[in-house]
């Protein structure tokens, strides 16, 4: 069954993703950490689908679609910001800072 160990792994991966978002300043790495968190949540959905029905796997399908859309739009925004500031470092992206 492996429900408990899968949920533990999901917790560890999600925490690593959060730590990555807090630690890094590169916008592209931040996006990759968000993808890591989405993967961790997908893992717990798949683990619960074993006991609570296949709806969980359908939700994973939707999460993957949304993640692909998010990656496409997000990377396009990073591309536009890079054209403006010549950098993807978050310390150079402070246009909205008061």
């Amino acid at each position: 069954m492996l429900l408990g160990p899968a949920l533990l792994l999901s917790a560890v991966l999600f925490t690593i993703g959060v730590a990555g978002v807090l630690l890094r300043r590169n916008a592209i790495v931040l996006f990759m950490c968000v993808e890591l968190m989405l993967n961790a949540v997908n893992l717990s959905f798949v683990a619960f689908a074993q006991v609570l029905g296949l709806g969980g796997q359908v939700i994973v399908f939707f999460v993957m679609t949304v993640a692909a859309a998010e990656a496409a739009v997000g990377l396009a925004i990073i591309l536009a910001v890079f054209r403006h500031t010549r950098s993807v470092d978050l310390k150079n992206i402070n246009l909205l800072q008061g």
Partner: protein
Amino acid sequence: MSAETVFYLMAGFAAVSALLCITQRNIIASALWLVSTMFSLAGIYVLLNAQFIAAIQVLVYAGAVMVLFLFVIMLLNVGRGQSDLRGAPVRFVAVLIGGALLAQLFFLSRVTPGGMAVLAGSAAGAGSPMGAFPAGQTAASAPVAQGVVGAIAEPLFRAYLVPFEITSILLLAAAVGAVVLAKRKL
């Protein structure tokens, strides 16, 4: 090897790859470690009776999404130069927040479906967790009767048909939005 041994091997590989992904200075190395995390997660999905999800994990995530990431990294030619890790105080706070979050999630992950039913019963007095998803069969039993793809297609095209159709509008909007944002001049 038993399924448990394979699971723990893959889980260790996924966790170590994820750690390397957030600590590598080179962004391309970071992206490739993320690909390795996603591959080991695909292996774990097979062990958890989600073969179709494992296949689209490799195709969509490790394939399409990560190729998009690597394409943008190489297009912008970034990642060389000094490390983009934040300073010591932020690092300390990040470890603190991460530890607190991990403790909370560990506590939550010990809740079993049976315990969840007890919690739901004591709180609202109605509804088992089985009612949360409109899909009766579990991941282990359904593929035997319907096949791997048929088992997931049945809830996808019956109970979740409207969300599935809305997904196509989302993808169209994302594709148009990405082109509009990335193009210099329309």
